[in-house]
C-alpha cells in the first residue's frame, strides 16, 4: 500500500497563532492542507498570505463557519483528490507538539489501516473541570465500543486513513463541532478500523482562543453519546465477538479485576455524588450486563457454583438456569452500589446488624489487635464505611493489588474520617511481616481474604474440600496469622432481607504451625476455614463473588505450602 501522508489544519479565527504553527511544520517536508472554516477577514487575510508564501501549503476555504468536523471532512475530500492516503490533523492553536509528528506517521506507516491518535500527557495547566470531563467521556466510550481499546477519544492530533474516513463522512452525518473527535473515532472503530495510540504532550494555551461553548457544546456532546449508546446496542454482538476473538486466554482473577475495577469505582462514585443511587445504577447495570454477555468464563463459573449449591441443599433450590446466572451477576452490581452508599456514610445503623461486634471491641480494649479472615462471599468492603459501628477500630486490609495507594486516596477523598487502609502484600518479606506485627501490637486489625489464591498460581496453596471437591486455598493468610501469634476471627457481611448482617466469629486464639507437620497443619486450618465458608455460601449463594473457576488449578501433591526453591525473600 502506498503511504502518502499530508498535514491537515482546520482553522477558524486563529489568525494570531496559525503563522507560528505553520513555521514549526515547514521542516517536516510534508504537503499541508489548511481548511479555512469561515474565519473573519483578518484571519482570512493571514491565511491568503501564508498560502502565497509557501508552495507546500494548500488552502481550502469553506464559505461559512461549519465547525471542525465539517472542516476535517472537507480536508479529507481534498486529500483524496490530491492522491494522499493519510492526513495528519493538527489544531491551529499550537496545543499539539509538532515534534511528535514523525512518531505518529511511523505508526501509521506500520499500520496503514488504523486510525493513529495521540494520547495526551497533560501539563499541569489543564483546567480542572475539563480534566474530570475527560474521564466521564472515557467511560462512556468504553461502553459505546464495549471495549477498553479507545484510551482517549478527544485528542485531535491524529492520522486519519483517507479512504475509510471518506467513506464514513459520505455515509454518515458525523458531529461537526466539539462532538466530532469522539464521534468519528467510535464510528471508525465500529466499522473495523483499528485505533492505536502514541503518547504525546498537550499544552493548554493560556492566551488561546477557545471555541468551547459551554451550553451548546455540552448538549451536543450529551446528544452524541446518547446516539452512540443507542448505536452500540444493535452492534453489541459483533463488538463482543470482536473482543473475544482478540483475547480469550484464561486470566487470573487479579488481572481480570484490575481491568476496570478502579475506574468503575471512580465513575460510580462520581455519578453517585451527583445523581445518587439511580445515577450509579445507570452506569453499573449496563456494565454488568456487558460483563455477563461477554464473559463466558465467568458465566460458566457462576453456573458451576450454583449447581454445587443446589446439590448440597443450599439456598439455590433448582438446577441453575441462565436467569439465575444473570441474577447472580446483577447482585454483584447492586453490591457495588451498596458499597458506595456506605463509603459516602449514607448507610445507617438500622440497616446493619452486627453480630460479634463486642468481641472486637474487647480485643481492642485489651490493647491488642487481631486478624480478621474474610472472603469474597458478601460485601465485606461495606465495612469500610461503618466507622461508627466499628468503634473507630483501625483496619488494615491486606490485598494483592498494586492499585492499593490509589484506592486509599479514593477512600480518603470520599470519607476523610476513614480509619482504614489497604496494604499491598504482593511483595511479602521480613519487613512486611515486622510491620504487620507492629500494627497488631498497636491494637490495629488486619483483614485478609483467605479464599483467593495469590497471583502466582500453584505456589503457596493448599487443598481443602469445598462444596464437594477439593479447591486450592491460599496458605498466606494462615502463615501470616502464625507469624504474628495473634487471635484470628472470621468476618463476613451479607445482605439478608434488605439489611446487612455482619458476623464475627472466633476462629483461633493463635494459629500454630509445627515445623515437621507444617503442610498438614496448614491443611487443617484451611479446611476449617473452608467449612465455615461452605456453610455460609449455602445460605447466601447469590452473594458469592468469585466469578472464576474456583476449583480450577488443582493443587499438586507434596509440599506446595513450602517453596521448594528455598528462601527467596517472601
Amino acid at each position: 500500500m502506498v503511504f502518502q501522508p499530508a498535514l491537515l489544519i482546520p482553522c477558524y479565527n486563529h489568525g494570531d497563532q496559525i503563522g507560528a504553527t505553520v513555521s514549526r511544520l515547514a521542516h517536516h517536508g510534508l504537503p499541508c492542507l489548511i481548511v479555512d472554516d469561515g474565519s473573519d477577514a483578518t484571519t482570512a487575510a493571514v491565511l491568503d498570505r501564508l498560502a502565497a508564501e509557501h508552495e507546500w501549503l494548500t488552502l481550502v476555504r469553506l464559505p461559512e463557519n461549519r465547525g471542525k468536523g465539517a472542516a476535517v471532512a472537507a480536508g479529507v475530500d481534498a486529500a483524496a483528490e490530491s492522491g494522499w492516503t493519510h492526513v495528519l490533523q493538527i489544531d491551529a492553536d499550537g496545543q499539539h507538539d509538532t515534534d511528535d509528528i514523525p512518531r505518529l506517521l511511523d505508526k501509521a506507516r506500520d499500520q496503514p489501516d488504523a486510525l493513529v491518535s495521540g494520547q495526551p500527557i497533560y501539563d499541569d495547566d489543564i483546567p480542572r473541570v475539563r480534566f474530570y470531563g475527560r474521564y466521564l467521556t472515557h467511560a462512556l466510550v468504553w461502553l459505546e465500543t464495549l471495549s477498553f481499546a479507545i484510551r482517549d477519544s478527544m485528542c485531535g492530533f491524529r492520522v486519519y486513513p483517507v479512504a475509510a474516513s471518506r467513506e464514513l463522512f459520505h455515509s454518515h452525518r458525523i458531529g461537526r463541532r466539539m462532538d466530532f473527535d469522539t464521534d468519528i473515532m467510535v464510528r471508525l472503530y465500529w466499522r473495523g478500523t483499528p485505533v492505536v495510540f502514541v503518547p504525546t504532550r498537550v499544552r493548554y494555551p493560556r492566551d488561546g482562543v477557545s471555541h468551547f461553548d459551554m451550553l451548546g457544546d455540552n448538549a451536543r456532546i450529551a446528544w452524541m453519546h446518547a446516539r452512540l449508546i443507542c448505536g452500540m446496542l444493535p452492534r453489541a454482538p459483533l463488538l463482543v465477538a470482536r473482543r473475544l476473538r482478540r483475547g480469550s486466554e484464561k486470566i487470573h482473577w487479579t488481572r481480570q479485576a484490575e481491568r476496570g475495577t478502579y475506574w468503575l469505582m471512580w465513575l460510580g462514585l462520581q455519578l453517585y455524588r451527583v445523581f445518587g443511587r439511580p445515577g450509579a445504577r445507570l452506569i453499573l447495570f449496563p456494565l454488568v450486563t456487558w460483563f455477563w454477555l461477554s464473559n463466558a468464563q465467568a458465566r460458566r463459573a457462576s453456573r458451576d457454583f450454583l449447581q454445587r449449591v443446589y446439590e448440597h441443599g443450599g439456598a439455590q433450590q433448582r438446577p441453575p438456569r441462565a436467569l439465575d446466572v444473570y441474577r447472580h451477576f446483577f447482585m454483584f452490581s447492586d453490591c457495588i452500589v451498596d458499597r458506595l452508599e456506605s463509603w459516602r456514610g449514607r448507610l445507617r445503623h438500622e440497616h446493619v446488624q452486627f453480630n460479634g461486634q463486642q468481641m472486637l471491641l474487647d480485643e481492642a480494649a485489651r490493647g491488642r489487635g487481631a486478624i480478621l479472615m474474610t472472603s469474597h462471599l458478601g460485601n465485606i468492603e461495606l465495612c469500610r464505611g461503618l466507622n461508627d459501628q466499628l468503634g473507630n477500630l483501625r483496619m488494615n486490609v491486606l490485598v494483592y493489588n498494586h492499585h492499593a495507594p490509589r484506592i486509599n486516596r479514593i477512600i480518603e477523598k470520599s470519607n476523610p474520617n476513614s480509619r482504614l487502609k489497604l496494604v499491598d502484600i504482593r511483595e511479602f518479606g521480613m519487613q512486611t511481616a515486622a510491620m504487620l506485627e507492629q500494627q497488631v501490637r498497636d491494637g490495629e486489625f488486619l483483614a485478609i481474604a483467605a479464599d483467593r489464591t495469590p497471583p502466582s498460581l500453584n505456589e503457596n496453596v493448599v487443598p481443602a474440600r469445598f462444596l464437594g471437591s477439593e479447591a486450592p486455598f491460599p496458605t498466606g493468610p494462615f502463615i501470616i496469622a502464625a507469624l504474628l501469634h495473634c487471635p484470628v476471627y472470621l468476618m463476613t457481611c451479607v445482605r439478608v432481607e434488605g439489611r446487612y448482617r455482619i458476623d464475627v466469629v472466633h476462629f483461633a486464639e493463635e494459629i500454630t504451625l509445627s515445623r515437621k507437620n507444617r503442610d498438614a497443619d496448614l491443611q487443617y486450618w484451611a479446611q476449617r476455614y473452608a467449612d465455615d465458608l461452605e456453610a455460609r455460601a449455602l445460605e447466601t449463594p447469590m452473594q458469592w463473588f468469585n466469578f472464576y473457576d474456583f476449583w480450577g488449578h488443582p493443587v499438586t501433591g507434596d509440599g506446595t505450602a513450602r517453596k521448594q526453591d528455598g528462601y527467596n525473600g517472601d
Partner: protein
Amino acid sequence: MSDDLGRELKELIIESLDLEDVTPEDIDDDEPLFVDGLGLDSIDALELGMQIQKKYNLKLDANNEANKQHFASVNALRRFIESQQAT
C-alpha cells in the same frame, strides 16, 4: 564477644524454629542457613526474621534481596547485627 553472639544466634535459630535434633555445634558459621546447609525454607526465614528483629531491635531492609544477604549464614547475620548496633 562475637563468638558469644554467634552461639547466641545459633541457639535462637534452634529455639525459635523448633529444630529438635540440632545442637549449636552442628551449625557451621559459614554454612548457608537456607536450602543447602541447614535446609530452612521461606517460612522459617520469616519466623527467624521476626525473632531476631525483636531481640536485637533491628531495622530490616525494605529490600528483600538485601535481607536475603543478611540472613545467608550465621556469620552474615552476625556482621549485620554488629553493623546495626555500631550505628
